[in-house]
């Protein structure tokens, strides 16, 4: 059944592409490409009628961000979305440290909906939007 939006769980983490991007320099195209995407489960994507590389809007209590949806290439992970570490992931990550200093980088509830015509902000645009610099 086609749905307008889904409530999922956000995980953030490492991918090898993000690792190479960050070592090459955070201004590089590699870094941008590897951190402005979100891995989604195939069945979840079908529910939203998303195709690979369609843009999606992800919203949490902390804010929202537009990213490129990519089908998770190995196995299933229903109910989860996975964004590589970076400023885009952290625009929506939970700040709750549960009193031990560690924010909840894995496990923020997130609402996902298609946003086919919305652009992905560049690093500079994102920083301007968030910090006014």
């Amino acid at each position, binding site marked *: 059944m086609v749905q307008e939006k889904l409530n999922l*769980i956000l*995980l*953030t*983490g*490492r*991918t*090898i592409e993000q*690792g*190479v*991007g960050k*070592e*090459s*320099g*955070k*201004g*590089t195209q590699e870094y941008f490409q590897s951190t402005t995407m979100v*891995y989604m*489960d*195939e*069945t979840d994507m*079908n529910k939203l009628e998303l195709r690979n590389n369609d843009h999606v809007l992800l919203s949490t209590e*902390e*804010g929202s961000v537009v990213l490129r949806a990519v089908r*998770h290439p*190995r*196995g*299933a*992970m*229903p*109910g*989860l979305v*996975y964004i590589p*570490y*970076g*400023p885009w992931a*952290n*625009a*929506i*990550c*939970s*700040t709750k*440290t*549960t*009193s*031990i*200093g*560690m*924010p*909840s*980088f*894995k*496990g923020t509830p997130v609402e996902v909906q298609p946003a086919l015509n919305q652009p992905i902000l560049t*690093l*500079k645009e994102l*920083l301007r939007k*968030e*910090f006014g*610099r």
Partner: protein
Amino acid sequence: MSIVKSVTCPVCGCLCDDIELTIADGAVVQVKNGCAMCEAKFFSHNNEHRSTTPLMRKDGELVPVSYDEAIQKSAEILANATYPILYGWSSTDCEAQRIGVALAEEVGGVLDNTAVVCHGPSILGVQDVGIPTCTLGQVRHRADLIIYWGCDPWSAHPRHLERYTSFTDGRFEGSEWKSYINKVKAAAGKKKLRSLERKGILKERHPRVAPSVHDNKPPEILNKKGRKLIVVDVRKSMTAEIADYFLQVEYGKDYELIQTVRALVKDQELDVEKVAGVPVEYIQQLVDSMTSCEFGVIFFGMGLTQSAGKFRNIDVAISLVRDLNMRTKFAILPMRGHFNVTGANTVFTWQSGYPYGIDFSMGYPRYNPGETTVVDILMREESDAGLVIASDPVSNFPRRAAEHLVKNPLIVIDPHMNATSLVGDIVFPVSIVGIEKAGTAYRMDHVPLPLKKVVDPPKGLLSDEEILNRILNEVRKIKLKNLEVA
């Protein structure tokens, strides 16, 4: 053209020290033995994203200034702040970290390193229950069961498998590389068939269906001889794909699963059929592999420390290893991320008594994670200045925490432009530790290794150590002057 051998790679906690570099015209032109991240880093020393002049924000724009001016201004900011944050430290050498401790003490600030957002919970777990551990050499030569729990070395520590675990030829245990190659070949064959089917060249036997969390039955292979590789994770990572067995745990239920494993290790009976989405009989097979091995090792990562439970997950994982040592030999190691985050914890501990989140505002070191840790301080909006070195919190902290950091005067020391330097107030370019400056770093298993200098830094660039030293001297002068005036 010259060749430098046995270079230590300054990227991840594996700290591979077998890298071979070819240098021509003062630049690295070829990297041998390293992984993709290693290559990217060694080549990055002369790419266009390098910063080469100190910058200072004037009228909202970053403009070039001299080192002297930038150092003087930074010292003033830090000396006059009441509660500055000094954060980062994991991608620089122990020599710079040591001066960082002195500077934090001098300005009465908070000293924290990136462990707080990666393996901080692991340290808390270790402080609770201790840790039965070993060096990676032991693993390489003796381990016949390797378990990666909540980590994906194939992506984050690309050579971990090849140098220390499954794919290395140790003295007593061989490499599993061949069986992996066979598996890849088989998978490639299947892929080819599927692509032919898609193109209509072969008749489709099975229509494509979306993958599901299948029941994940442990394969026969768990009874095989030789090293076994098991991965426990919430999604099928790259490492999970090559493992002998991948156990898919439901998100946030690692704690339950580990406690179940502990119960089974102690031969207790369970009256449920599934735990954390895994049938108990499969967990039993995992337990059988654990208790029947000669020397097993659990490596764990962010999957445990950043998910629900956080340091409690580590508590029980370590306790599991302690239990297993009643039946066989077992060890556990955290997969430390940045190449010298272990060094940061070590240096901070030997200088102040605490590994991270150290508050010097009372004049003596105080440590209370959740209170004196940087994200909490930023969320409470208590700090009034920041120094960030060798790290990028504006990228890596949740946005609201980064906001307060940016609101106050922010000093950034980093060889490359990144999100933090783009929004900083004073930006120092520096030589790259491990490429343009020699130093010391600690591998993830606490083995210290030397970092080499292989090329010269761009003309006039100072090192982290020199900049910190000069800031510290200036701070001392300002404090002395203030004292005289008073």
